[in-house]
C-alpha cells in the first residue's frame, strides 16, 4: 500500500485507529467461515459519519476499494477485501442514539451491538425489546439488518430489514443520505409513504453504500414467556404443522431443528415455538391456542409437544443463544459455516433431505434447522457444517458441502442468504437477466469508480 493512503487515513481518524500492519491485515483477511483469506491494505476504525465520508472520498481519489465490516460474523466472507483496499471496521460507531417508547423504535449507529441494545432496553425501557438474531451479542445492526437477517421476533415482524424504519447512509461518492421519514425530520418512524430507497442498501453486501445509522422497530417485552417444542417424525408434515402453528398469530418465533445429536433428537423434526404475554392467564390462553392449532397431529399421535425440563427450557429461551456458537467445537476445530437458504415453507421436506444427504456424502458434522419468517411467509433454512480449522482437508470438505448445498438450493428455487462470492455467482446465473442488469445499472450509477466492496455481486 502506498504510504500516502495510510497517512491520509490517519489524518481523517487519527493514527490510533488506522493500521496497515501485518497483524491487522492478517486477521481482517478472513472471517470464521471457510472462505479463503483476502488481505486488506489497511484497516480503519471511523467514529463519525463524516469520517466515513472522508474515507470514501479518499478511496475515490486513490481508486482504492472500501469494505464495510461490522462484527465480521457473517461467516460467508462478505467482509473480506477481495480486491484489497480499506476495511472499515464500524464498531466504534456503536451508540444507541434514542428510543421512542410510544412509536416503538430505536435509532442506533451501525456499529452498535445487538447485545448492547438488548441491555439498554432492559435497563431503560423494560417494556420493549428488539428482534435479536441467533448471532453472538457483538453482531452489529448495520451488518445484520443490511444482510436481511432474521431473529427471535421474526414471526411477528419478518426479516430484520422489514423491521427497519429508515437509515442514514454514506454513498459511494462520499455524500450522506437519509432514507425514510428521517429524511424530512428527526422522527425515524417509517419508510412509507416515500419511494423506498432503503432497498438500494439491503442485501447488497456493502456494494452500494455504507450504512451509518438505522431506526429499528421495537416490540412489547412481556413479563411471562414460554417456549413449547412440537416434535414429529415425518418431515413431509412439517409445512402443514408450521402453517397451523403460525395461524393463531401467537408465536413470536418459530425455529425448527434437526440434528443427529443428542441421540434422543435423532430422526425427529422439532419446532420451538416461543411466545410471551402480559399475564399468566394470557400466556396459558396462547398456549392453548397453539395446542388447538395442531390438535389433529396430537390426536393421531403423529406429533406432539414434548415435555421440556426447566433447564432445557431456559436454554431454549436464552437470547442470544450462546450454545449455538458451540457447534464450532463439535470437531474441536473452531469452525462452522452454514448455508442459510431463504425458501418457501413448503420446501421444508426437500430441504431437510438435501441437508442430510449432503452431510452424509461429505462426512461432515451437521445441524439443520429453519427459522420461520413472518406468518409462514418464508423460512430461512440453515445447513450448518462444522469443520476443524486446523485440518485443511476438513475445511475443504465443509467448503464442498456448502458449495453443493448452495447450488442445490438455487436449483430447488430457494435463495442462499448472505451468499458467499461463489454462491452469488450461482444466484446471478439463475437470476432474471433484467434484474441482474438493473443491479449493474444501479451500481454503475451509484459507484462509477467501483470502489465499494468489489468482487461481490459482480455480474
Amino acid at each position, binding site marked *: 500500500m502506498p504510504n500516502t493512503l495510510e497517512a491520509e487515513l490517519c489524518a481523517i481518524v487519527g493514527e490510533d485507529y488506522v493500521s496497515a500492519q501485518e497483524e*491487522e491485515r492478517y486477521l481482517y483477511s478472513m472471517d470464521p467461515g471457510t472462505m479463503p483469506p483476502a488481505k486488506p491494505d489497511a484497516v480503519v476504525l471511523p467514529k463519525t459519519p463524516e469520517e466515513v465520508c472522508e474515507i470514501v472520498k479518499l478511496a475515490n481519489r486513490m481508486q482504492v476499494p472500501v469494505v464495510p465490516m461490522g462484527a465480521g460474523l457473517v461467516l460467508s466472507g462478505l467482509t473480506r477485501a477481495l480486491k484489497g483496499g480499506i476495511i472499515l471496521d464500524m*464498531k*466504534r460507531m456503536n451508540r444507541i442514539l434514542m428510543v421512542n417508547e410510544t412509536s416503538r423504535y430505536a435509532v442506533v449507529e451501525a456499529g452498535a*451491538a445487538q447485545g448492547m441494545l438488548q*441491555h439498554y432496553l432492559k435497563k431503560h425501557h423494560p417494556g420493549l425489546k428488539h428482534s435479536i438474531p441467533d448471532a*453472538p451479542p457483538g453482531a452489529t445492526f448495520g451488518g445484520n439488518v443490511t444482510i436481511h437477517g432474521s431473529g427471535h421476533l421474526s414471526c411477528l415482524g419478518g426479516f430484520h430489514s422489514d423491521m427497519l424504519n429508515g437509515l442514514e447512509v454514506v454513498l459511494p461518492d462520499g455524500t450522506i443520505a437519509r432514507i425514510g421519514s428521517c429524511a424530512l425530520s428527526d422522527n425515524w418512524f417509517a419508510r412509507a409513504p416515500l419511494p423506498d430507497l432503503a432497498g438500494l442498501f439491503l442485501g447488497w453486501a456493502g456494494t452500494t453504500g455504507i450504512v451509518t445509522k438505522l431506526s429499528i422497530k421495537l416490540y412489547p417485552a412481556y413479563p411471562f414467556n414460554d417456549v413449547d417444542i412440537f416434535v414429529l417424525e415425518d418431515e413431509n408434515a412439517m409445512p402443514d404443522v408450521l402453517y397451523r402453528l403460525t395461524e393463531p398469530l401467537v408465536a413470536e418465533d418459530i425455529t425448527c431443528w434437526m440434528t443427529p445429536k443428542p441421540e434422543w433428537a435423532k430422526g425427529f423434526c422439532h419446532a420451538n415455538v416461543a411466545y410471551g404475554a402480559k399475564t399468566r392467564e394470557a400466556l396459558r390462553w396462547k398456549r392453548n391456542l397453539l395446542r388447538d392449532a395442531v390438535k389433529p397431529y396430537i390426536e393421531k399421535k403423529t406429533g406432539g409437544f414434548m415435555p421440556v425440563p426447566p433447564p432445557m427450557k431456559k436454554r431454549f429461551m436464552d437470547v442470544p443463544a450462546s450454545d449455538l456458537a458451540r457447534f464450532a*467445537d463439535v470437531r474441536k476445530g*473452531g469452525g462452522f459455516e452454514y448455508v442459510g437458504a431463504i425458501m418457501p415453507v413448503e420446501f421444508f421436506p426437500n430441504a431437510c433431505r438435501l441437508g442430510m444427504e449432503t452431510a452424509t456424502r461429505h462426512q461432515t458434522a451437521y445441524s439443520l434447522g429453519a427459522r420461520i419468517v413472518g406468518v409462514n411467509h418464508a423460512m430461512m433454512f440453515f445447513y450448518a457444517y462444522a469443520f476443524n480449522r486446523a485440518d485443511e482437508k476438513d475445511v475443504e470438505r465443509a467448503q464442498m458441502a456448502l458449495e453443493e448445498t448452495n447450488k442445490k438450493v438455487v436449483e430447488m428455487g430457494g435463495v442462499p442468504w448472505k451468499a458467499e462470492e461463489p454462491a452469488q455467482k450461482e444466484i446471478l446465473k439463475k437470476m432474471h437477466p433484467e434484474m441482474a442488469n438493473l443491479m449493474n445499472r444501479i451500481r454503475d450509477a451509484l459507484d462509477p469508480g467501483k470502489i465499494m466492496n468489489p468482487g461481490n455481486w459482480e455480474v
Partner: protein
Amino acid sequence: MEMEHAEILHRCFRCGYCKFPKNYADINCPAYLKYRFETFAPGGRMWLLRALLDGKINGSKRMQKILFSCATCGNCVNHCAFPGFRDRLLDAFTAGKELLIDSGAIPPEARDYLTNLTNHKNPYKKPAKKRGEWAQDLDIPLYSDEEYLFFAGDVGSFDSRGMEIAGAAAGLLKAAGISFGILGGDEYSDGNDAHAMGETALFRELAEKNIRIWREKGIKKIICLSPHGYNAIKNLYSPYADDLMVFHYSAIVLQVLGKLNFQEVKPVSVTYHDPCYLGRHNSDYETVRGILRSIPGVQVKEMDRNRKNALCCGGGGGNFFTDILGGGPESAAAARAREAADTDAQILVTSCPICTTMLEDGVKAGNLDSHIRVVELSVFIRERTGAIG
C-alpha cells in the same frame, strides 16, 4: 515454534462473547476497549498466536503490544462460549508472552519492568532495605512469632498511594488486635505480574525466595494487601508450598469488624469496583460488600457491571507498571470511572492498591473529580473509624 496450550488456539471461533459481560452492557475487555481492533480482542489474540506458530506473522512490535496489553482480567475466561477450553485462555496468552520473551521479542516497557524485578526484586529499583519504610511510624513489628505475616507487596511498599493504603490496612488490623508482623527488607515481590507477563522463570525465583524466608521464620498464615499478591501466593505458589493459609486483608477485616469503632459520620453512598484478582480470579465478590454494608451510614450502589462482570481497571498483567495498555479517556479505567459516576455514588471504593491508582487516573481522564472520589477500602474504613495508620 512451540508453546503450551497451542492445541486450543484454532478452536476459538471468534464469536466475541469474550468481549462482553454477561448482560452485554458494553465492551468488557480492557485491551479491546482501548484499541478497538479485532486483533486486541481475546479471539484475535488466539488466532494471531496460531498464525505466529505457523510462521504467518512474526513477533513484531505490534504483536508484542497486542499480547502485553492484555490485562489478564479474566473476563474472557468467564464469558467465552466454549466450556471445552475457556479456562485456558489466559494460560494461552501467558504462554504466548513467554514465547515472545524467549525469542527476545519483548516491549521495552515490559523488559524494563522485568529487568528491575530481576535486579532489585521490585520494579521500583529501590533497595530492599526500604521495603518496610511504609510502616516506620506505625509501630509494626518485624515478624518473629506473630500469628500472621502482613505482605505489603511491591505497590504497598514503594508506591506513595500504595504505602498509604498499606498503612491504613495495617492500622485497621492493629486496631482490631490482630497479631501480625512484616518482613521489611526480607520481603520479595510476589511475582504475580511477572508470571502474567510470561516470565515464569523469574516468577519461580521470586516465589522460592519468599517461601524460603517464610519457612525459616515458621510463617504459615499470610495477610496480603494486594489481590495480586493474594492470587500469587494462594494459587501460583501452591505447587511449591501448599500448606500456607493466605488471606486478602479484607477477609480478616470482615472477621474483626465488630472490634472497629465506627464513628457517627454523615451518610455516604459508595459503589464498589471488584479487583479482578480478588473477584474473577478468586471468586471473592461478597467479603468487601459485606464490610461496606456493615458500616453505619453507608449505602452501596452497584454498577451495571459488577462481580464476575466487572470492567477491569486495566492495571493487571503488569500494565500498571508498563503502561502498555495506556490511559486517557478511551481507557478501561476512564470507562470504569464513568460507570461509577453514573451510579451517583459519592465514593468509588476498591480493595486493591493498583485498582485505586488506575481508577484515580480514570477519574482524572474523564474529568470526573467533582463527581466521584476513589478511596481504597482500608482508607475508607479508616476515615469512618479514626483508626491510626
